[in-house]
């Protein structure tokens, strides 16, 4: 479960698909999947190097297609911002495409595209990533460009003001005019009261209006440095060749200030929180979140399996109960989102079917939660979840992008080798473990629920 905080509420330089909460499920399982591969030969193996200036390089050699992806990830996301300056990391991501002192504006993407490549970027609560895809005979092209923008970003004040407007348009598109996404944003802002996870990656509209070029310069100087970044290369490459090119381009970039990776602690919650969003909409919608530990915690694996049993595939409990049997919802889902450095959330949500009451939909979701809190799932269900994880692990490797994304996400929250360590955890999950974590974490007092109340305002 990449997502929510990550892919979904992150912005991108260019519009990709708008990924909504429950499409995350697919990614989620893939993720989990990576962690669990009895077929050792298909385990994800990266070669790791560390340059003198602290830049870590991870390379996966895979020759199944004549293409490759080159990526640079920085350990900075919206959690590194502060009240009044939210959205800074994401706006900086946009500015990274607006030129450097060396190459000037309108160069980066055009150069990549001229070589038949594609480029884009994403910002999450924990990190900011930049990536290019190219035919493998041109994969060294982005190396020099990425090294350049790690140190020479122009951050021209006029360009900042113009790009701020672009991001405000992005915010209108993704949030202001999307009632379900607004609920998501409000639920997170309510579930967390002091942790920086509470604000959206894209930032609050009022903060966006106030961000100044100086704010961006400070953010860039602090976080964009080799010792706060990693490079990922996946695909049809020769590691020694590409590594020497990386050394040449990045090796002389000086270290930046040391950045602590301290965690923030969210104060306790005692009692359910509820919020309502009233917007012009057609169908009521509900989103509940429960506070849970992050994926590296000992309960992480059982929470993953729990998410799968509740929501992976049409035979899963929630789809089968709410959409198929009771026909209460047009879509319904749940999932563990633990790919964070600090404890995050377990989700359960649904869009009511036309004519159905959201109270009944909520009761339906709670029924499923209660059931698994009381009784362990069957051995068959746990086995199915593990099979789904194994298959997605292998199938996910069909895409170089997903391989890079997975290794990078684990690296950002504690180290890519956790993939292997966590694998053992998944293997050990028993039906009783699943019940135990459901009983421990899916409790009303740790829940925050948001409900979309549709207003009908047609002229």
């Amino acid at each position, binding site marked *: 479960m990449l997502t929510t905080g990550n892919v979904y509420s992150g912005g991108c330089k260019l519009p990709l698909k708008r990924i909504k909460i429950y499409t995350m499920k697919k990614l989620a399982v893939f993720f989990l999947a990576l962690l669990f591969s009895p077929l050792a030969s298909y385990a994800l193996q990266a070669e790791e190097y560390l340059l003198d200036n602290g830049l870590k390089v991870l390379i996966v050699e895979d020759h199944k297609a004549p293409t490759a992806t080159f990526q640079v990830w920085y350990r900075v996301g919206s959690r590194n911002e502060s009240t009044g300056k939210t959205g800074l990391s994401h706006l900086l991501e946009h500015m990274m495409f607006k030129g450097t002192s060396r190459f000037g504006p309108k160069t980066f993407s055009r150069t990549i595209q001229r070589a038949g490549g594609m480029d884009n970027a994403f910002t999450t609560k924990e990190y900011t990533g930049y990536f290019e895809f190219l035919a493998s005979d041109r994969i060294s092209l982005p190396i020099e460009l990425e090294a350049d923008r790690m140190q020479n970003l122009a951050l021209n004040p006029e360009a900042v003001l113009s790009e701020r407007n672009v991001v405000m348009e992005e915010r209108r598109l993704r949030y202001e005019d999307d009632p379900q996404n607004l609920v998501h944003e409000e639920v997170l802002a309510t579930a967390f009261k002091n942790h920086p996870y509470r604000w959206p990656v894209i930032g609050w509209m009022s903060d966006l209006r106030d961000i100044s070029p100086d704010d961006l310069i400070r953010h860039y100087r602090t976080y964009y440095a080799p010792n706060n970044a990693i490079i990922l290369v996946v695909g049809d490459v020769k590691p020694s060749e590409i590594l020497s090119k990386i050394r040449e381009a990045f090796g002389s970039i000086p270290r930046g200030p040391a950045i602590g990776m301290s965690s923030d602690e969210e104060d306790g919650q005692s009692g359910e929180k509820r919020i309502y969003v009233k917007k012009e909409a057609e169908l009521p919608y509900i989103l509940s979140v429960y506070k849970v530990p992050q994926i590296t915690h000992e309960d992480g694996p059982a929470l993953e399996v729990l998410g799968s049993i509740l929501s992976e595939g049409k035979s899963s409990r929630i789809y089968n109960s709410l959409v198929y049997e009771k026909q209460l919802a*047009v879509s319904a889902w749940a999932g563990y989102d633990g790919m964070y450095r600090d404890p995050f959330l377990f989700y359960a949500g649904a869009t009511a079917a036309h004519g159905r009451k959201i109270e009944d939909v909520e009761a339906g979701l709670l029924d499923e939660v209660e059931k698994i809190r009381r009784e362990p799932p069957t051995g068959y269900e746990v086995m199915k979840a593990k099979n789904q994880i194994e298959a997605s692990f*292998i199938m996910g490797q069909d895409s170089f992008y997903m391989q890079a994304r997975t290794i990078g996400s684990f690296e950002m929250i504690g180290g890519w080798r956790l993939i292997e360590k966590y694998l053992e955890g998944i293997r050990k999950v028993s039906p009783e473990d699943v019940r135990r974590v459901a009983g421990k974490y899916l409790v009303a007092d740790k829940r925050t629920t948001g409900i979309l109340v549709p207003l009908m305002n047609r002229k």
Partner: protein
Amino acid sequence: MHESGSQRLFNRILLLSLFVILSSFGSVECHGALAERKILPNGMVLLHAEKKALPMIKVVVAIKAGSVIEPAQKAGLANLTADLLNEGTLGRSSRKISDEIDFVGGSLSTSGGIDYITVTLSVLKKDIDLGFDLLADIILNPAFSEEEIRRRKAVIRSSIIQQREDPGTVASKAFLRAVYGDHPYGWPPEGTEESIEAMSRQDITDFHRIFYAPNNSIMSVVGDISEHEVTDLTEKYLGNWKKRDIPQKLPQSPRFGENPLVIKLHKDISQAHVILGHLGISRDNPDYYAVSVMNYILGGGGFASRLMDNIRDNKGLSYDVHSSFSANKYAGTFLVGLQTKNTSANSAIDEILKEINRIISEPVSDKDLSDAKSYLTGSFPLRIDSNSKIASFLAAVEYYGLGLDYVERYKELIGAVTTDDVQRVARKYLNTKDYILVVIGNMDKASLKY
């Protein structure tokens, strides 16, 4: 390039069956044939590419039973039929099908479409027998039970209602309706609340009986599977699927409109969604390649395109601005789409028209031309670098009759495009007088002059 609120059931349908020219097709050095092609005795076209890197197999079955062949009063029939395939067969309940495929960590899904519908299977190599069994069962023996029909109708109806929440979808539907008029491409593939309600079981079983035939289907199989294994599996599970005569009722080509048509839809939202465009070209138009280059320069080429450069990069008016030609079997559309705060709608539309006029009246530079060509040809490897992408690509190549040497031919076809060609096709296929303009947003704030 629709804003796909991905949870809305149908947004992707359009994309699936259209050959959207954005930055799509480039060329690649070809290492041997892309796939083996053969026609089975029952008439089904089989495309096979063996890829041993991963122990997985991807199968796409494309059946020429998309919404383009459904009768006008039965809008949504093709989609509903496809949707019901995995909701129960003569021997398996809906739940049994999902349970069997979920248990092995595979997926089996169906998707409606305009030109053709698809059934897609992903499984590990060790589960391919079960996979083919399920795939064949849902295509050949769907039960179409009254109860499942009722369920799916309700879900589709809710989804149609929910689409009204998404301004991008509302604008897109209004645009297609206006461009195509009574042509089947003009009605929504998912149907309307009324047309879905009126659909009977007989309609569905008739549609299935007539159009779901092997000689009306294309199957692509990509992954860790030999030709011998594919042959055995198709014989075992699809051997009984009998050839039938398919009625060839082809829709007429839609016609260009004669006057600009402005559709204003009020919705109290913070942005105006704008679509401006008109009828485009069909996939078999020989100008497709020159049009691809022209569109890349105008608005298909992301940050390298003029629309993005002008409207986003220089003016900060929009996050997403793009142009596309969607070239279907019978006809396509040309459109420019963007979203901007209500009060900037007029100036954004001004700029769209200015850029279209510019590419019509001024030849593009040699640099613009060569940049576009090098992207289109150079990016081809990225389009076919996974089993999933290859499987879908093969089905489309077959459906649109492009030939298995398309990868190489494409490079030549794009390579031959000149600046004169670009201007010629801009003049021929772009029109700043007779266009359709759809704007949805707060009309009070937008106060459109159009």
